[in-house]
């Protein structure tokens, strides 16, 4: 695949759990340069949001709301936290990222392209036949993805399986997974939560994008989750509540998660669905509706 690596000047990595192994030699690993610089990350978020709007507008369908709410989460992970190398997406010791709420893939595609995994100039082929940017993440088309998702409820289990494999291999790899808050209604999430707590899969970090809206409306009206922190705690997870749009808080929380042993960590990331675009914010309509051309222009005018 023609993957032009983006060269962005970056600070030193925040987390340096990584130690040289045979893999780095075999795979010729050149870690993606991580940064803690919040201004820089904010800039990445801004261009990611613009990209999301452009992609979905071009596709004329897709899910802007949940892509925009997860922007800081995904950007912070790829730019501050994950040990990864876009030139070697199958490096065994890499950290894993799974977007369990696969419908929000525009944010993932935008960030992965920005990191150099895949071409930026094809992002606007989103949802077209043959595009590597499928309507939901599909490893057949974009092998750098860790998982094909789109059927809600499955990503946490996958991350736990990857966490177990890393432990068996004595690998420092960690697995990160983003769930939607509506998604948390799936029973499989609680099976996985029970498993993770019981087996102490502490190299897994789960992030709930708590944007308070699902497909048919507000979570509190469809199937309320409160008290969500109590739920996860009673399933023996280390719970951190954060402002999911505050990059500094996210960085701290991810560091705390990495330091937490004997328990997996879940971040309840309070977010705003549609964040960054005034008329999309907290508006259930934009869960799964593409902006019109005019709306897109208005949105891009706000995203500066």
């Amino acid at each position, binding site marked *: 695949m023609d993957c032009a690596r983006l060269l962005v000047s970056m600070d030193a990595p925040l987390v340096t759990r990584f130690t040289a192994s045979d893999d780095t030699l075999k795979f010729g690993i050149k870690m993606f340069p991580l940064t803690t610089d919040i201004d820089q990350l904010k800039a990445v978020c801004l261009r990611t949001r613009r990209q999301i709007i452009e992609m979905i507008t071009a*596709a004329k*369908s*897709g899910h802007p709301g949940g892509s925009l709410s997860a922007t800081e989460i995904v950007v912070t992970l790829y730019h501050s936290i994950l040990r990864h190398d876009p030139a070697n997406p199958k490096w065994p010791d890499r950290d894993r990222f799974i977007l369990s709420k*696969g419908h929000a893939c525009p944010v993932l595609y935008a960030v992965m392209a920005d990191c150099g995994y895949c071409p930026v100039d094809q992002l606007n082929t989103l*949802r*077209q*036949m*043959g*595009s590597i940017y*499928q*309507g*939901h993440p*599909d490893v*057949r*088309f974009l092998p750098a993805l860790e998982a*094909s*998702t*789109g*059927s*809600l*409820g499955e990503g946490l289990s996958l991350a736990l399986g990857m966490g177990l494999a890393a432990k068996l291999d004595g690998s420092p790899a960690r697995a990160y997974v983003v769930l939607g808050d*509506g*998604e948390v*209604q*799936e*029973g499989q999430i609680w099976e996985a939560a029970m498993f993770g707590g019981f087996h102490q899969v502490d190299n897994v970090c789960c992030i709930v994008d708590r944007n308070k809206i*699902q*497909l*048919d409306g507000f979570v509190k009206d*469809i*199937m309320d989750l409160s008290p969500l922190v109590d739920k996860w705690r009673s399933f023996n997870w280390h719970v951190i509540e954060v402002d999911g749009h505050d990059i500094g808080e996210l960085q701290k929380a991810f560091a705390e998660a990495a330091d937490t042993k004997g328990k997996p960590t879940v971040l309840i990331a309070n977010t705003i669905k549609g964040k960054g675009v005034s008329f999309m914010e907290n508006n259930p309509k934009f869960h799964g509706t593409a902006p019109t051309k005019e709306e897109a222009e208005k949105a891009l005018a706000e995203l500066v």
Partner: protein
Amino acid sequence: MALKIKFENKIGPATREAFGKALVELGKENKDVVVCDADLSKSTYTNGFQNAFPERFFECGIAESNMVAIGAGLASSGKIPFVASFSAFILNKGFEQLRVTAAFPNVNLKAVGTHSGISIGEDGPSQMSIEDISLATSLAGFTVLCPADEASMTALVKAAAAHVGPVFIRAGRSKAAILYSASDTFTIGKAVELASGSDVTLIGTGLMVAECVKAAQTLEAEGVSARVLDFHTVKPIDRDAISRAAKETGAIVVVEEHLVDCGLGTRVAQVVTETTPCVMEFIGVDTYAESGTPEGLLEKYGLVASNVVTAAKKVISRKR
């Protein structure tokens, strides 16, 4: 062939939309009709019922397994529940519940799966069901319906409600070509002969019925007389229509928006070999598809009239 309907290749509403409207009518007629949905009421069109009868609508959130068994509990207490989601989710996540709480005790539950087949388009394969006919027909005692257009869906939703026992209804996302009018009648288990013919029989279900009709028109122009059968009921299967088709036309093509090796085609083949062996061809998909426009996908994955024409000619050439 002789077409028995007026077919103008006019596009009507999607079958899921027809389902939603029929539900509202049912709700007016019978206060025991209740509806459950799993955070997809805008897509399954159960939101019409929800607006009309909010007290008889139960939002289950994104939790399909529970929804199915909630429905079975309602049915066990005398209600006529329609539980709906995308076909992929209600069947694939609710299968054990459909088996144990509905099929096994023969409970009066109606399960509805929309967004069947690859014609859902841009959302891609995670949301497409190409195995729903297989799963639904693997539930002993279930009636499995897959109507082709608005009028047949409307009639068959009512027939499903009137039928005592578990039913699965397969509905599509895309707009469907109009085949029938509101005055046409349908009997569960009885295929509709849309065109008489003697050289070959084209059996379709769902959106593929219209493709069969179009193919029959093309074939007629080339001097081939094709019978067209609408299998709106996949189970119980119309053994009689199949054995007559085998005997009278000696060649059958089955067309479905489904995995080709576990759907309607295999069931028809079984009846053919049990009654009157004849040559057959099968049109379906053999892998998970991708994002794209509905039309583009149907074309790319070989589910349009021209593919039916080719298969018909091939199967005829195989006759001895």
